[in-house]
């Protein structure tokens, strides 16, 4: 009896669930389970080019690229760029990154003044940037396709594959609010539909080139091809260190129990200022 009762309940629940199905938007895609990497998968990493060490951007060349290979802004976007450029030149820079949201792609590669590093694991290349915990890109190299409609995020969704010693990466699904930045004070939100193509490869034993093709149809007249250079250093002083963007918004203080705490610091537009006179 108890068994029959259970069966009846299950049947009713089943009917109820079935009747709910048409109301659901769509069936989620199958959740693929990745196989555990094998010893051969780990060994295969040894055949990839050596990108170990810390990579520091060529900042001088970043600036040079902007003047020698300018961004093909749409005519209607150009006045915005001119406005922010003038604001910076006149000493009123807009702080694109002051809110401590990530640079996002492709600005992380284009304008960073901080080092980054690569981690190779089976099926994935991970890029970690210094100075913010949020400078993190996962580039899947396990053969998966880009999803049709990835949830937008700051660094987009990236898949890559190796062509010889070159990592070829495609990135889509970047939030339209992410800036296409040419400096920390001048940039325009990417808008919808941006795609970033990268070919990352060594051009000298300790020089890495990111060759980028940036499609941003909302703001560019054509895809922008540009290169960013990074130099390797293996000194331990170049090891990536932790960086928490908002830490600078606080100073050390003490609560009423004597615990060490952080309290907001005095600042204006991202500049630390002396405490106001009492």
């Amino acid at each position: 009896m108890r068994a029959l009762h259970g069966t009846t309940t299950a049947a009713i629940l089943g009917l109820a669930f079935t009747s709910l199905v048409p109301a659901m938007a769509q069936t989620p895609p199958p959740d693929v389970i990745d196989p555990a990497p094998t010893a051969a998968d780990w060994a295969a990493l040894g055949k990839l080019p050596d990108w170990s060490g810390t990579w520091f951007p060529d900042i001088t060349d970043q600036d040079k690229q902007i003047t020698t290979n300018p961004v093909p802004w749409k005519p209607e976007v150009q006045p915005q760029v001119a406005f922010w450029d003038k604001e910076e030149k006149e000493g009123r820079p807009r702080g694109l990154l002051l809110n401590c949201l990530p640079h996002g792609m492709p600005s992380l590669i284009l304008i960073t003044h901080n080092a980054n590093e690569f981690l190779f694991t089976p099926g994935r290349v991970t890029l970690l940037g210094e100075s913010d915990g949020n400078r993190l890109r996962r580039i899947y190299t396990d053969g998966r396709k880009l999803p049709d409609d990835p949830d937008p995020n700051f660094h987009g969704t990236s898949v890559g594959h190796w062509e010889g010693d070159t990592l070829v990466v495609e990135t889509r699904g970047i939030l339209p609010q992410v800036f296409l930045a040419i400096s920390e004070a001048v940039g325009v939100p990417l808008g919808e539909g941006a795609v970033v193509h990268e070919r990352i490869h060594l051009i000298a034993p300790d020089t890495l080139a990111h060759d980028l093709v940036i499609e941003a149809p909302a703001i560019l007249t054509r895809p922008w091809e540009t290169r960013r250079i990074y130099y390797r250093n293996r000194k331990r002083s170049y090891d990536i260190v932790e960086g928490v963007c908002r830490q600078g918004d606080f100073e050390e203080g003490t609560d009423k129990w004597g615990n060490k705490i952080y309290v907001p610091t005095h600042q204006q537009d991202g500049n630390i200022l002396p405490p106001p006179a009492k």
Partner: protein
Amino acid sequence: MIRKTLIAALVALSAAGVAQAHHSFAMFDPAKVVTLQGRVKEYRWVNPHVALLLDVTAPGNAGGVWAVELTSPGNLTRLGWSRKSLKVGDRVAVEVNPLRDGQHGGGFRKLTLLDTGQVLQARLIDIEKNAAGGH
């Protein structure tokens, strides 16, 4: 022509030299250099900008507390700095590009520890050059 190219190169180098992580330093006036003499009041070894608060002993408006911004701890480490490079009370002379709006803030250029004569610099171009040198 060569002279023009050389000047352009120097300008580019100096721009990279003062460029900092995270925000433009255009709010500081690169055409003005002020030397602040005083004592270290606070030395904050934090991201994204290390900050130095100085008790400046200059007379008149320049006296009082000044806040000076530097690059990140990671970048300063590569230039030989550490969180122990300065301590509260150190007598220093600090060259800064002051805030354009007249407030007591500045972008760091160079520091001299007056008791030892040691000079500390923080130019990103030097890190870039070291990195380009490799290894």
